[in-house]
């Protein structure tokens, strides 16, 4: 057994492990991995997403359990201090020694901090790790609590710098970008495209300062500004340095490996360093005199190193490395591929520029007009995947190359379809997956969704840029097989929930048996019955009393069944606001029926242990005291949680309780594919945890921010931003539409987060539907929601007032006796059901 030690657990180090465990011969090897960060490898490419969701786990490449499962020894938080090449050992900073047969260096790079006077001051950060980000967040929060218009600058206008600029915006500080070169993204963009990008970024509030050499950082202990020239000063409260990267090659240097003049460990095309037992991959490897700061070449290096070590010595690194890239910077598409800056002697450029729309497209074509050599896209990169493929595969181009970038008359894609690509075309460059592999995965292995194909081939799992193309390939292949992918509810209905929704609505069917007779078969089941009940409720606002035997059993009895077959009772306490008088009334009733009481997670009171026949009696008393049903039993609105807001709180920006009550009363009783919850916070301290809800409002300077599609539960998800700083009326309108759209299109028992996850186009598409009305349906959504709001009825009031409904609340149909098997035991000052054996 041979030992392979990997030093560095970043994206490339992880990829090495992943490729390694996939090889059958890996049993002959033991794999040990060291990382100096406290957590396992995470997706640094999408680091700025951390500011949106603060969720380090979501960025994880694989959880710690993955390493255990694959017999990899992972040591996080343990830096390597020394390599002894003669003994073939390494020593960690914790002074532990390990012996290797092969050593793989994947220590990556660190942020380059230019030697400017004052960079050590408080408030100066680098943008590289999750810990850096956490430090920045904490500092920004401190700033904002003492200053209303704090400013933060980013030093560096390259790719990473602009990502950091987005982070600054997300933190709510005034963002400034300071760049030494006379243009943004000097390595990827030509001057004209750079100007277009600059216009666009300025239009969304970024302040851009070009051609500035920073002399020193001003301030005593804490940064107060940056000085460029004598009278050229920019006041800032925080600085984020993102001025490039520097390979972390110290280890290699110390043990005498060959190092490049400007850093980086020299490797050959087998990824071997000057010591044949030591490999270097990723951003420390100097290959062809170049450091490659992109994910795709790093992944290729990892694959080559794995093959070399296990003995597939034929796999060597490609001679030329494709540096094409496509990204979304602060919501702006930017892409460049092939040779973006071609000199006029080598070919002709076709350029389309429209500054009014912040659009720029340039393609470089060979002198004979037959080949695409490279190009740049800013503002709209939908053509990127196709152009990149044409370039990579040397595919023929139209005699008028402008067709490649000019929109066709009908506004649809201009040239070619993904299916025209040769099978060998690499569609996912991060994972090196070809078109042929994607199509075979559908055709031969029976994968019928992009998700399944991604699982099987790994395509789209890197940067995700190829997702549209892979989606096209999957759909087109399915079509060519004559397959229509269909969601089916159960054996009784050959429809998806959405289709059945439309049928019920269009044909005005209000009865389950009629629906089953006309559009289904057989006698129904526990899947389609409650689903139909939910549709009747969502469309006609029919209460659960009318067709009670198609309801889930909680809905049938308007209460939540508990362990011993007794029920719990939850009256609505909108927004969590409850008067002393109401509390006394509730307490009196709970005491009378000997109920166990507890405060719920949704700021209301749950009363447990009610026997079936007691339910109408309890509710009669509650209704007399002014309470109404809280629908805790339904797939419907539960609660809208609130913090106390500006009426009492010294930090409150607006009245969160009033808003929560208004919105809870608006949506109460509305039934949906799954339960849904809301939250309203009076300021960004977010005490109501609104971002853990299906919809949430947070008061900010100038209005309300709306977040949607979050939840706690088994798979927690933070809600994402739908709109910013809107007034209350607009906020309600947007959420009305979002909820209605969700109710109409989600699959059964799918919560909003899962729905958004599955929705093609994600949150941007939701914005397009509910804000920009791209489907032309908002009037209808508004009408549908208003209908539900206007026709609300308390179904418990209906139940206690109607003798026929009340009649079912008895344990025996032929006796008034109670169920003698119900048994309670004491619990603190209350009671609980006898435990299950």
């Amino acid at each position, binding site marked *: 057994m041979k030992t392979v030690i990997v030093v560095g657990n970043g994206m490339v180090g992880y990829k090495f492990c992943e490729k390694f465990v996939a090889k059958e011969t890996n049993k002959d090897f033991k794999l040990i991995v060291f990382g100096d960060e406290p957590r396992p490898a995470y997706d640094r490419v999408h680091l700025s997403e951390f500011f949106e969701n603060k969720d380090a786990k979501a960025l994880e490449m694989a959880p710690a359990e993955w390493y255990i499962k694959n017999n990899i020894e992972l040591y996080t938080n343990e830096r390597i201090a020394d390599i002894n090449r003669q003994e073939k050992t390494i020593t960690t900073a914790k002074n532990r020694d390990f012996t290797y047969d092969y050593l793989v260096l994947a220590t990556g790079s660190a942020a380059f901090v230019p030697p400017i006077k004052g960079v050590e001051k408080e408030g100066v950060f680098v943008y590289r790790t999750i810990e850096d980000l956490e430090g920045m967040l904490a500092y920004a929060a401190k700033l904002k609590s003492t200053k209303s218009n704090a400013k933060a600058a980013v030093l560096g206008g390259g790719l990473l710098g602009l990502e950091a600029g987005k982070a600054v915006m997300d933190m709510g500080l005034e963002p400034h970008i300071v760049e030494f070169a006379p243009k943004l993204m000097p390595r990827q963009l030509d001057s004209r495209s750079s100007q277009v990008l600059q216009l666009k970024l300025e239009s969304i509030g970024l302040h851009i300062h070009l051609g500035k050499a920073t002399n020193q950082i001003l301030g005593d202990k804490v940064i107060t500004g940056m000085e460029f020239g004598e009278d050229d000063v920019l006041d800032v409260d925080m600085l984020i340095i993102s001025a490039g990267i520097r390979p972390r090659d110290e280890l290699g240097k110390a043990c005498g490996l060959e190092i490049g003049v400007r850093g980086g460990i020299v490797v050959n095309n087998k990824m071997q360093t000057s010591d044949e037992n030591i490999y270097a991959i990723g951003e420390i490897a100097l290959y062809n005199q170049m450091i490659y700061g992109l994910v795709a070449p790093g992944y290729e290096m990892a694959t080559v190193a794995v093959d070399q070590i296990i003995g597939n010595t034929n796999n060597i690194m490609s001679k030329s490395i494709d540096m094409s890239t496509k990204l979304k910077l602060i919501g702006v598409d930017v892409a460049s591929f092939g040779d973006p800056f071609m000199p006029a002697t080598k070919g002709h450029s076709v350029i389309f520029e429209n500054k009014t729309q912040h659009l720029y497209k340039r393609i470089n074509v060979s002198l004979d007009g037959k080949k695409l050599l490279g190009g740049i896209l800013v503002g709209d990169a939908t053509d990127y995947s196709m152009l990149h493929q044409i370039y990579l595969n040397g595919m023929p181009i139209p005699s008028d190359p402008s067709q490649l970038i000019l929109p066709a008359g009908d506004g649809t894609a201009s040239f070619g379809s993904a299916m025209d690509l040769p099978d060998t075309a690499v569609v996912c460059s991060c994972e090196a997956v070809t078109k042929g592999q994607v199509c075979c995965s559908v055709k031969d292995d029976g994968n019928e969704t992009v998700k399944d194909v991604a699982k099987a081939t790994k395509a789209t799992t890197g940067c995700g840029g190829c997702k549209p193309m892979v989606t096209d390939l999957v759909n087109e292949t399915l079509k060519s097989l004559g397959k229509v992918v269909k969601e089916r509810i159960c054996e009784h209905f050959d429809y998806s929930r959405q289709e059945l929704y439309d049928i019920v609505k269009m044909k005005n069917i209000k009865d389950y048996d009629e629906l089953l007779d006309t559009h289904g078969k*057989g*006698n129904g089941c526990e899947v389609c019955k409650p689903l139909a009940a939910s549709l009747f409720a969502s469309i006609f606002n029919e209460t659960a009393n009318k067709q009670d*035997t198609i309801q889930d059993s909680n809905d*049938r009895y308007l209460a939540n*069944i508990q*362990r011993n*077959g007794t029920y719990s009772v939850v009256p609505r306490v909108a927004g969590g606001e409850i008067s002393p008088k109401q509390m006394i009334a509730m307490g009196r009733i709970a005491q009378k029926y000997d109920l166990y009481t507890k405060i719920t997670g949704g700021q209301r009171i749950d009363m447990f242990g009610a026997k079936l026949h007691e339910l109408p009696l309890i509710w009669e008393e509650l209704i007399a005291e002014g309470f109404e049903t809280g629908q805790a039993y339904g797939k419907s609105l539960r609660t809208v949680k609130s913090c106390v807001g500006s009426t009492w709180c010294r930090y409150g920006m607006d009245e969160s309780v009033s808003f929560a009550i208004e919105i809870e009363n608006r949506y109460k009783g509305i039934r949906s594919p799954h339960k849904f919850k809301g939250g309203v916070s009076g300021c960004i301290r977010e005490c109501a945890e609104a971002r853990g809800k299906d919809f949430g409002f947070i008061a900010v300077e100038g209005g309300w921010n709306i977040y949607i599609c979050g939840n706690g539960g088994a798979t927690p998800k933070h809600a994402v931003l739908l709109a910013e700083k809107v007034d209350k009326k607009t906020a309600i309108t947007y959420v009305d539409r979002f909820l209605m759209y969700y109710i109409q299109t989600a699959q059964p028992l799918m919560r909003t987060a899962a729905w958004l996850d599955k929705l093609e186009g994600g949150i941007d598409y939701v914005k397009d539907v509910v804000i920009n009305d791209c489907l032309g349906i908002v009037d209808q959504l508004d009408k549908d929601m208003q209908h539900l709001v206007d026709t609300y009825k308390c179904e418990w009031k209906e139940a206690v007032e109607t003798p026929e409904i009340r009649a079912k609340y008895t344990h025996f149909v032929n*006796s008034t006796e109670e169920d003698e098997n119900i048994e309670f035991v004491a619990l603190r000052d209350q009671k609980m059901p006898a435990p299950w054996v």
Partner: protein
Amino acid sequence: MITSILKEYSPTALNQVTTWFKAAKTSKFPKNGGACVKYKNKQIAVFNFTREGKWYACQNLCPHKMEMVLSRGMIGEDMGTPKVACPLHKNTFSLETGENLNGTLDAIATYPVKIEDGFVYIGFSE
């Protein structure tokens, strides 16, 4: 105490019936739903499967957690087999044979039902 209740219930075939217990009027049972009948110390779930035009009876006790709840379960059909889903954990049982259709729980006891003069009768063998 609770597990011993299970012994109260044994599957009864039509030809074993010695007693027809007159339970209640048919109108007391909801369409396509169930209700619970008390017979001596037994609890029997009776289902009015209107869509099939049939009636079924079985023990009210779910063998999973020994709770008296099956009569409140939803009824339906699984590839032609009539079934009831327990309201606690959605375990489903055949209303004909009593077998657990979506798991490995013990079968429940089922009983014959007949309707005469607007009344529901349940057949027992004791």
